[in-house]
């Protein structure tokens, strides 16, 4: 088995995909670091202070004003209200949620990339894992070895897991190294609040507790890798079913982007919560943002994603083992 996995890793590495992805991450992190740096400077200039409490208070007031203006949608209003309560909570407890530093940047980067960017990167690697063998004709060689088909597919799946892990590692290392050059490398022990639960329009703070940023980050990375694995598994299934890598990418892209759009507008379509793409923002539950559809919780979303992933896995193995190769 280890030989098979090695084979798959060799192919992935030789296709240079992992390096391209690392390069993309590096460029994006650079861009975001610069943007964040500019933003911080701008805020300081506008308020004439570096005191985060003043900045946070100003954000709260801005949010309140937005809440009071007419013509904002009900969902948005709800979202703002919850954010307001949260910001107020941070303020009341003297915690700066956006203290500068590479770990904070990393955390924000992970939170913002979990829905689209990370799945996209995963897709780039996984989309052609099986379909390229089918379209390139090497599938015939692969399947006429004295190795059972399920073992071949399993080795590919393990290689997928390893690649995803590598992508995450690249994300973490690059965002830490690059943003740290600007914001400094400290801030691992910054206390952060978690355990918010949203009930209707109210923020339930009964379970709120402090954890150090490194742990918070670790939790978010765990969730991100879970999301990446699920998205990877779905892409994997499509890759098994279809010969054309472009078709695989197209379908996944459509699903992911529609997920990003849907999350903003499905609050009235309740059964949409069973779609995998609106459940990708797992880190929102940790930071306490409102879910796109009322009644969604961390456990629910993990459950939905796990079911999707499991079904995709079963389908891909079933199809791969029983299919005739022409």
């Amino acid at each position: 088995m280890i030989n098979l996995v090695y084979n798959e890793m060799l192919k992935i590495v030789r296709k240079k995909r992992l390096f391209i992805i690392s390069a993309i991450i590096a460029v994006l992190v650079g861009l975001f670091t610069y943007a964040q740096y500019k933003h911080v400077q701008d805020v300081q200039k506008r308020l004439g202070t570096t005191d985060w409490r003043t900045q946070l208070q100003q954000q709260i007031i801005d949010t309140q004003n937005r809440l009071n203006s007419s013509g904002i949608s009900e969902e948005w209003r709800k979202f703002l209200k919850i954010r307001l309560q949260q910001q107020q909570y941070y303020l009341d407890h003297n915690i700066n949620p956006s203290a500068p530093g590479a770990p904070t940047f990393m955390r924000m980067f992970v939170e913002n990339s979990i829905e689209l960017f990370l799945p996209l990167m995963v897709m780039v690697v996984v989309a052609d894992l099986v379909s390229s063998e089918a379209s390139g004709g090497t599938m015939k060689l692969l399947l006429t070895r004295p190795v059972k088909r399920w073992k071949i597919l399993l080795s590919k799946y393990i290689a997928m897991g390893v690649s995803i892990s590598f992508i995450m590692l690249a994300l973490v290392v690059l965002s830490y190294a690059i943003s740290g050059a600007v914001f400094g490398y400290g801030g691992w022990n910054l206390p952060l609040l978690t355990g918010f639960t949203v009930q209707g329009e109210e923020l339930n703070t009964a379970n709120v507790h402090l954890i150090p940023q490194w742990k918070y980050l670790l939790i978010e990375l765990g969730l991100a890798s879970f999301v990446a694995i699920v998205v990877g598994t779905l892409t994997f299934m499509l890759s098994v079913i279809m010969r054309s890598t472009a078709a695989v990418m197209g379908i996944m892209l459509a699903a992911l982007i529609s997920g990003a759009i849907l999350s903003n507008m499905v609050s009235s379509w309740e059964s949409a919560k069973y779609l995998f793409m609106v459940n990708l923002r797992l880190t929102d539950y940790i930071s306490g943002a409102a879910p796109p559809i009322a009644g969604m919780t961390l456990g629910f979303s993990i459950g939905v994603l796990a079911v999707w992933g499991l079904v995709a896995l079963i389908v891909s193995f079933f199809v791969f083992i029983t299919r005739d190769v022409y």
Partner: protein
Amino acid sequence: MTDTLVVQNLRKTIGKKEIIKGLSFSLREGEVFGFLGPNGAGKTTTIRMLVGLIKPTSGRVSICGYDLQRQFADAIRHVGCIVENPELYPYLSGWENLEHFARMLPSFSKERLQEVVHLVGLQHRIHDRVRTYSLGMRQRLGIAQALLGQPKVLILDEPTNGLDPVGIREMREFIRLLAEKEKLSVLVSSHLLSEIQLMCDRVAIMAKGEIIRIDDVETLLKEQARVYWKVDSLERAKNILANETTVLETDGMLVTGYEASQLAVWNEKLVQAGIRVSEIQPKLPTLEDLFIELTGGETID
């Protein structure tokens, strides 16, 4: 001689259409077996069933005594194959490709890799990327990977497809060498009779999913070969030859069966009768002729 590959009553149905209609044949050790048929006769489907890429609807394939369905790994270990074009990973070098496939075998050694590389004569370019290889080199690399596991049966689908004349000859010689020296059973499919004739010991002719005939190549050819006579007096010559054998007339030429020992005798008779013979032309049957002959006028589609 023992049978290495035995096929019994192999069938494949897709939807309601029966594509392969009950094939049975077997390969002996050290022989080259030809699989002859026009495109669409079911050669490729059959070969894919032999190597486990397609599951037969019914029937049985056994390789060196192992059932392909039930003991896949044991059975397929004795088979090396190239199905259609030898498609390898273009972004890896030839050596890495071989290593890749070798790692999928139960055991492998660097020595065996070197051995097959030498066998196909690729030692100079083996560390280049496959992307830079010519078709002939890819074909040879394909054979190298098929031979890696020291198989008893080698299955090659259209091995000379796309090769230049020199390449075709090399390939032919190579295949013969494998059968004679290494005692491999080689199954070669082709839609060119000339190729089969030069390479194979036995041949199975397929059309529309059925094997019409299995026989030694020589027997088959002898039966079907023709001799064309060009003479100045068609009517008289026809009468004379008709006494000896069956004669047909086409395009101002006479056609008789091919009997090597008798040709000179017939010619002598014609000359003695004062008929001037300007051409005696033995002709191998075309595949088309063979089919028309064997299927009784059924055309190739």
